[in-house]
């Protein structure tokens, strides 16, 4: 929707301002709030980027712009806890652990993948570097707003810092020639070594008894790990095999860092251990087992097994491993294999928000939360359902009836080529 937004800005600037000032009322839809049940013939009231009210029989304030969405489904914008859209990159090949590297310094917000994610109903994504390192860098939590810079998309913490986690991995992807580890034991040892070093560094940096000039010199890598050890930055840990999953739990316990397990292909084998550790799991839906040795025991039933064990569960796209436009499908296949509908919907929204520490702002349709929502033409877990509109903070970022948005939604000539967006912008005279 980037281009349409630019065009609107150029021609209809006053109208855009009005749209921001006036409340928007979405009426007549079935609203899946996630936290407050499902509301038939409900109204969602949006004002200045926030949800002002949600429910049935809500008074529509004078001056509100009314959107009749009768027969449609409204639900929260989807939260993708693990995505690689935006041509993201992190650590280079020089070392296996690089906590100083930031994903935000690599992202191309004009990348077609971001517009396809909007088309899939994703409004928040944890955009991460890859899994070829034990620690490949700082991730960034993005709102998929229409914007020209990564700063415009980045989610801010209350102190103004850009929100994100820390990407780690174990198992086979991060095993290679030195200085990378050649075994699982070495992988864990290298990680422990850095966290031990960080414990000492962070302690000295923050110790009021040590004079400022005696404290260790600023070290970006150590600073990154300090944010992990303090709990400010959650570790997002790629892990597949049951023993690797348990290793993550062991390291998290030793150093007290907060962690979300990602992929978790063999999570069904250690569901009780994961539950006991109170560690959340963000899983991926892959249509067949194998393709790599760590995933030979992958099962559609993992979601249901983790749910039964009491593990906080989310799905993710791992885009481009699965397509952001088919994110709803991932949880629906989980339902096919025994997951409850309620958990499936939360696993696409609220549970992901909790894993990113963003639950107070996103993940459900509640008064006071960000007005991030999607309009669907049917049940979210049906193959036939389409995302019609995606709204982020009260702004429409995807509209299936818009020709360019439609191109990104279904594909076609130019859909894979992010530069088309730039060319369009030049034609609009906006750049």
């Amino acid at each position, binding site marked *: 929707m980037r281009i349409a937004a630019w065009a609107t800005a150029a021609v209809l600037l006053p109208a855009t301002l009005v749209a921001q000032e006036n409340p928007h009322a979405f009426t007549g839809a079935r609203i899946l709030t996630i936290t407050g049940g499902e509301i038939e013939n409900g109204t969602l009231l949006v004002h200045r980027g926030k949800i002002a009210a949600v429910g049935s029989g809500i008074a529509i304030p004078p001056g509100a712009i009314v959107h009749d969405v009768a027969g449609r489904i409204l639900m929260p914008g989807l939260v993708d806890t693990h995505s690689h859209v935006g041509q993201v990159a992190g650590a280079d090949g020089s070392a296996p652990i690089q906590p100083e590297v930031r994903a935000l310094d690599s992202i191309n917000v004009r990348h077609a993948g971001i517009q396809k994610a909007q088309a899939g109903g994703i409004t928040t994504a944890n955009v991460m570097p890859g899994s070829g390192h034990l620690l490949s860098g700082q991730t960034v939590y993005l709102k998929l707003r229409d914007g020209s810079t990564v700063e415009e998309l980045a989610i801010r913490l209350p102190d103004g810092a850009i929100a994100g986690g820390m990407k780690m991995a174990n198992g086979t992807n991060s095993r290679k020639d030195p200085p990378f580890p050649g075994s699982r034991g070495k992988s864990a040892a290298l990680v422990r070594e850095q966290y031990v070093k960080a414990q000492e560094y962070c302690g000295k940096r923050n110790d009021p008894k040590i004079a400022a000039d005696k404290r260790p010199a600023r070290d970006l890598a150590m600073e990154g790990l300090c944010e992990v050890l303090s709990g400010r930055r959650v570790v997002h840990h790629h892990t597949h095999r049951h023993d690797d999953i348990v290793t993550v739990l062991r390291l998290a316990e030793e150093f007290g860092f907060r962690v979300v397990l990602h992929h978790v292909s063999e999570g069904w084998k250690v569901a009780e251990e994961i539950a006991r550790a109170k560690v959340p799991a963000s899983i991926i839906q892959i249509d*067949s087992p194998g*393709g790599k040795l760590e995933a030979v025991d992958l099962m559609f*039933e993992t979601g249901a*097994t983790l749910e039964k064990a009491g593990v906080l569960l989310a799905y993710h796209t791992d885009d481009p491993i699965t397509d952001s436009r088919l994110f709803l499908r991932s949880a629906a296949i989980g*339902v*096919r294999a025994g997951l409850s509908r309620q958990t499936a919907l939360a696993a696409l929204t609220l549970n992901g928000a909790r894993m990113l520490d963003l639950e107070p702002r996103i993940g459900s349709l509640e008064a006071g939360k960000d007005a991030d929502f999607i309009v669907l033409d049917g049940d979210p877990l*049906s*193959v036939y359902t389409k995302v019609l509109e995606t709204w982020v903070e009260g702004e429409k970022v995807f509209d299936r009836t818009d020709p360019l948005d439609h191109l990104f939604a279904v*594909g*076609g000539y130019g859909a894979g080529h992010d530069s088309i967006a730039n060319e369009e912008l030049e034609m609009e005279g906006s750049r």
Partner: protein
Amino acid sequence: MTTGKQTKRAFTLVAALATFATLAVTAVATPGAARAQSLAIRAGTVHTMAGPPIADGVIVIRDGRIESIGPSASTPVPAGFRLLTATVATPGLVDAHSVVGLAGYLNQPHDQDQLERSAPMQPQLRAIDAYNAQEPLVGWLRSFGVTTIHTGHGPGALVSGQTMIAKTRGSTVDEAVVQPLAMIASNLGPSALAEKEKSPGTRAKQMSLLRSALIRADEYRKKVTAAGAAEKPPRDLELEALASVLDGKTPLLVTVNRAQDILSALRLAAEFRIRVVLDGAAEAYLVLDEIRAAGVPVILHPSMARAFDERENLSFETASRLEAAGIPFALQSGYESYVPKTRVVLFEAGIAAANGLEFADALAAITLDAAKILGVADRVGSLERGKDGDVVLFDGDPFEYATHVTGVVIEGVVVSEASR
């Protein structure tokens, strides 16, 4: 002593492992004709693909073949026949192009036989010499209703080898095979270029190599048929395989995605008057008129294939565009180098059905239309008297995400009863 918690966990493990056990066991427990091959199926809706769906239909299979099919009121179940019931029944699914059985799920060098890189053209490589009937991915596809696969050498070389058609059963290739030589697999475009300093290094070189080989094969077959017995050229497996293409016996399966590569394949078909089947065809929507005029069928890429490189412009709607243009097409699981190691045509057809393709056309793309393109529609692809008793049972709309495959029957033998 076992604690309650341990018991619970053991149960979870057993339940989970049962899925895999089912896949493994059915692979070895269905040795050809040694099992009962007679049974009947009654379903609320039977999609025969040979006419309108039958409400409350019955399919009677005797000795592996369909003996009768029709409304339950007029189609009695013979005494002593086992009766399976379902909400929906369809023909066994036909995966129009796969590499499963040559490509294994471990994705290690020892189980990847779909591509031999020692030379750009090796049409003599037979799929039957490489197919592993007990590969778990074969069982995986079977559990989702796929009963017939067209599999073999994959994309990645100018001519990678032969393909075959198999039923997803049996513990040996001989028990599985339907047609040992189905097509010769070739590939034009960037994914079949050789490494630096080797040929083919460009699209034009690919075509010149392929044309030269076909001309050599033409001369070879002329010598074989025309010359006296004493002057026959020595037997050449490579040229023999290409001669079979020139003779019109074996189609050339050409994997192409960019529009210009699709047109190259059509140019080749016209020059040598050979049967070409387009495979992949991501940009087919740009050259629909040309494909239709050439009378060439398309085995379209999986709907959910990743959109990058030469497939960056693929569209969920291409299947519906082909249908509207009147071009015969089928859907495939395709080749995947990573995860998922195979796709499942049932799921791919569902995405096509959600993007403009009518339900019946989407189902045909993985049953009868696929069987027609593969030349096996006399045996599979529809539920008709005399055809193989290959049936899939569902508990709802086959394409819905939350519907389950509840049974799979191959030639009257129940090969999967797990709810998948």
